């Protein structure tokens, strides 16, 4: 779809270069603006009384003592709030059969998870609000808690929503080819495994938070929030609080980590907006760390029974699995909690040629905190299931794990094609990436070294993963199902009088470097030094309409919109310049902030001179020339549901068989995210993602007891990866630009988190195999490994 000549046909100063992010200087001087940094006149502070019972009928809430406490301005219960909020239901029409129940910001009548907000205190300080929260007495008649997802559908298990016949939220089967016949073949080896993936959560270092301000004179709500999708939230507040959509302004300034955590409708945040509306005063809510563990969405928590059949040549004859996942008592609004299971169905085995594929998933309700989309949605499960089955099968038939991949990966020249589940695939490079990986990690030498070390009682292992990664989603992801989630994004670029350029974009910045890559693109495409580019993101009032940053779409979609807008502005400016200079647009160019002769590059006039002429001395221009010096372009992916990327990774671990401890010694990733706009930022995305993936593989788990109580809701007990245990990570790139855009960029944010867990699991099993042990449960804790070894 590219035009005759693009930015990639000429020298560039910024795209592809490791340009430092301008934002870092501000943040390194303590000049960021995160939610809790915002102080407004007359601002109040919220705290919530949260349920301590996983399932029960609320028979009474006594707030009298709390209300009487000096400094308390308002106390709301679910009943107080209900008349002001339209309930929300987390379903999407394209996930056929998905059901959930209406939700309110604070529980009304029945509480369904420990941590659910029951009452809200608004006070002069957070400390006083917490004092008051401690004075609220809640009476709950406990009901039996449904906590085990594997028995949630048993007839004897109570149903969480009385209006439903069971705890089933959604179910889907993908069935391609003749799976049963393939498994029945007498020339195949069948490997079966049960995989368990623990619940984990995002642990953004800045907890969720918001400041809401309401101006009754204008009926306007302004909502500063730490989040990824301002326009989506604008719709939600307008609809559910009964405001005209244009009267809701949502602002995301600095966001202290998000990873998919801060892109959902949380009752405490809706209640904060409502309290501001009811009181006519700004209200701040910043979750404390315990609230964060209890109420930020969780993810994963799947049990998968998988099996694979391979023939003697190592070719996959069939892959099949049953997945069950428990999502908490509701499907989150508006993205729903069925997407992760749906991704598992869609993505498992997608790197490979698999003709016979059956995947079945059940999504069930339970009385735990809700689950939803967190970084690399579904990928860790899908990739681990396929690649752990594949590596286990390779060992069964005595084949090397690299060789079995060579025999099954979709050939690099086979695109466009589709995956076993029917996903359209294009511009992928599994084989090239795998071969680059094998060379980078010195695969054969390491294998030999491991064999030698085993003689000394040192157990090391290598594990690989070949994966696809969902990026740049089209409207087929959410919009088609009725969600208020834009898949297109826009960029507006303006030439200011001083010759500087201002970019305003609907994608958001959470630290990935969105603002930096927008500046790189604008600077190169329009033709100014990057220091002359200013970028605004994260404000529904001032940016074009769009989806925000999630599903690794900021660079690919937001970046392409920016490229096109910059190109359009350039054409405009050259048209004006041609008139002023009595030349032709085709004979001129813009370089380094000046209009120059396209041939030879001699400077003709600075952009500042041009802009000042247009803005101040329009009398010098012909009357029929009406320059705007501003251009807006929007972009969406049209040819594919997603633009897939691919990555090949490997982990090297050492397992201590006496203690069950696993150390990740080395990690390598070869990523193909198409055009690399800024290699430093891409490498950082991959490395940070890998470390999150290692967290899921070895450390992180939300541990619940049978009553639905989260046992480790502190940072001392929920083990995130810290610096000492993490390895250095080697990152390499293969660049296969997507043909869906001029920019050619795909996303890079999910691969590490999506692929590392499977690679680490394969590596651990490679190390354990000589000891006659195996493990298919994440996180692979020392205790679980000791159990696998029969030591405890």
């Amino acid at each position, binding site marked *: 779809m590219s035009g005759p000549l693009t930015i990639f046909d000429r020298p560039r100063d910024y795209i592809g270069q490791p340009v*430092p*992010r301008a*934002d*870092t*200087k501000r*943040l*390194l*001087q*303590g*000049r*960021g*603006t*995160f939610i*809790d*940094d915002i*102080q407004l006149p007359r601002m109040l502070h919220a705290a919530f009384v949260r349920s301590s019972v996983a399932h029960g009928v609320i028979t009474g809430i006594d707030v009298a003592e709390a209300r009487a406490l*000096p400094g308390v301005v308002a106390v709301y219960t679910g009943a107080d709030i209900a008349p002001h909020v339209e309930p929300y239901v987390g379903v999407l029409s394209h996930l056929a059969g998905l059901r959930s129940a209406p939700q309110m910001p604070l529980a009304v009548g029945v509480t369904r998870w420990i941590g659910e907000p029951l009452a809200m205190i608004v006070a002069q300080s957070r*400390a006083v609000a917490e004092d008051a929260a401690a004075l609220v007495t809640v009476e709950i008649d406990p009901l039996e808690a449904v906590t085990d997802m594997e028995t949630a559908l048993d007839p004897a298990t109570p149903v969480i929503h009385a209006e439903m016949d069971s705890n089933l939220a959604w179910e889907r089967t993908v069935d391609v080819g003749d799976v049963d016949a393939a498994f029945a073949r007498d020339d195949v080896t069948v490997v079966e495994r049960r995989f368990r993936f623990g619940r984990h959560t*995002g*642990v*953004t*270092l*800045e*907890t969720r938070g918001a400041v809401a301000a309401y101006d009754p004179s204008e009926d306007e709500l302004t909502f500063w929030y730490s989040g990824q999708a301002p326009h989506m939230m604008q719709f939600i507040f307008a609809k559910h609080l009964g405001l005209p959509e244009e009267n809701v302004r949502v602002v995301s300034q*600095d*966001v*202290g*980590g*998000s*990873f998919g955590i801060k892109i959902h409708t949380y009752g405490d945040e809706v209640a904060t907006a409502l309290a501001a509306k009811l009181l006519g005063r700004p209200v701040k809510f910043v979750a*404390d*760390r315990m609230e964060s563990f209890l109420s930020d969405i969780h993810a994963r928590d799947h049990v998968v029974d998988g099996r694979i059949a391979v023939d003697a040549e190592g070719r996959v004859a069939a892959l099949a699995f049953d997945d069950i996942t428990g999502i908490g008592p509701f499907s989150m609004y508006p993205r729903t909690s069925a997407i992760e299971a749906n991704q598992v169905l869609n993505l498992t085995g997608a790197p490979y040629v698999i003709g016979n594929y059956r995947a079945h998933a059940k999504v069930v309700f339970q009385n735990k905190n809700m689950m939803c989309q967190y970084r690399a949605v579904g990928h860790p499960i899908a990739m681990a299931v396929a690649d752990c089955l594949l590596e286990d099968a390779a060992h069964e038939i005595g084949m090397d794990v690299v060789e079995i991949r060579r025999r099954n990966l979709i050939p690099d020249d086979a695109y466009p094609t589709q995956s076993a589940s029917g996903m359209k695939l294009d511009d992928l490079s599994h084989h090239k990436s795998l071969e680059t990986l094998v060379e980078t990690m010195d695969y054969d030498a390491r294998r030999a070294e491991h064999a030698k070390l085993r003689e000394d009682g040192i157990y090391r292992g290598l594990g690989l993963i070949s994966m696809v990664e969902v990026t740049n989603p089209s409207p087929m992801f959410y919009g088609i199902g009725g969600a208020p989630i834009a898949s297109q994004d826009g960029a507006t670029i303006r030439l200011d009088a001083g010759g500087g350029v201002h970019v305003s974009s609907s994608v958001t910045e*959470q*630290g*990935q*470097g969105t603002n930096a890559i927008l500046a790189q693109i604008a600077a190169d495409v329009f033709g100014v030094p990057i220091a002359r580019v200013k970028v605004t993101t994260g404000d529904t009032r001032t940016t074009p309409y769009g989806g925000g940053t999630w599903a690794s779409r900021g660079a690919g979609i937001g970046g392409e919109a920016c490229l096109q807008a910059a190109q359009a502005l350039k054409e405009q400016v050259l048209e004006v310049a041609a008139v002023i200079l009595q030349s032709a647009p085709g004979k001129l160019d813009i370089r380094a902030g000046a209009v120059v002769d396209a041939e030879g590059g001699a400077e003709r006039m600075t952009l500042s001179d041009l802009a000042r002429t247009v803005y101040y001395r329009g009398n010098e221009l012909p009357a029929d020339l009406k320059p705007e010096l501003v251009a807006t372009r929007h972009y969406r992916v049209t040819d594919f549901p997603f633009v897939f990327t691919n990555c090949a990774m490997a982990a090297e671990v050492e397992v201590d068989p006496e203690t069950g401890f696993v150390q990740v010694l080395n990690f390598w990733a070869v990523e193909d995210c198409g055009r690399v706009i800024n290699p*430093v*930022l891409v490498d*950082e995305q991959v*490395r*940070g*993602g*890998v*470390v*999150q993936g290692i967290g899921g593989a070895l450390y992180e788990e939300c541990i619940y007891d049978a009553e639905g109580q989260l046992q480790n809701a*502190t*940072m*001392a007990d929920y083990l*995130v990866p*810290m*610096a*000492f245990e*993490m390895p*250095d*990570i080697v990152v390499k790139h293969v660049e296969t630009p997507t043909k869906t855009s001029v920019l050619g960029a795909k996303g890079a944010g999910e691969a*590490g988190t999506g692929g590392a867990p499977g690679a680490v699991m394969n590596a651990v099993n490679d190390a354990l195999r000589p000891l006659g042990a195996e493990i298919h449960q994440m996180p692979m804790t020392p205790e679980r490994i000791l159990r696998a070894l029969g030591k405890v």
Partner: protein
Amino acid sequence: MAQTRMIRLTVNGETGSYTVPVRQNLVDFIRNDLGLTGSHVGCEHGVCGACSIEVNGDLVRGCLMFAVQADGAEITTIEGLAESGRGAALRAAFTARNALQCGYCTPGMLATALDYVEGGGAADRDAIRAHLSGNYCRCTGYQSIVDAVCDVIEGRVEA
């Protein structure tokens, strides 16, 4: 009624007297009363390290001290470092290595890295990782932070 005390302390070179609730922790005081919001609150139980600041020359968790305990103390925050120029090499290295993404851990990470560098720490990746092991970063994977600290110790950075 909340119990209060008068304290006198010096923050980033500026001395003042303040009345504080005795239950207010030091980082809340610095952020909310002094407006120095560069120090961040991440967990309020001393684990994440985001609120790490310098008190009387020592690296401490701002959430594990009450402001009243800081009576008479000299405190330096990330803003003070920027104003005085101290730590300039680390800041330059953090930018060059992109050793921060969202920036929320950065005040504590910078303070902890400075404690290591000024304490004469070696350019030994394991030792650096050990010293940083009480500071949580969800974004970077830590490698770029270790790189930045090594660059400073080995003199590869012009401040």
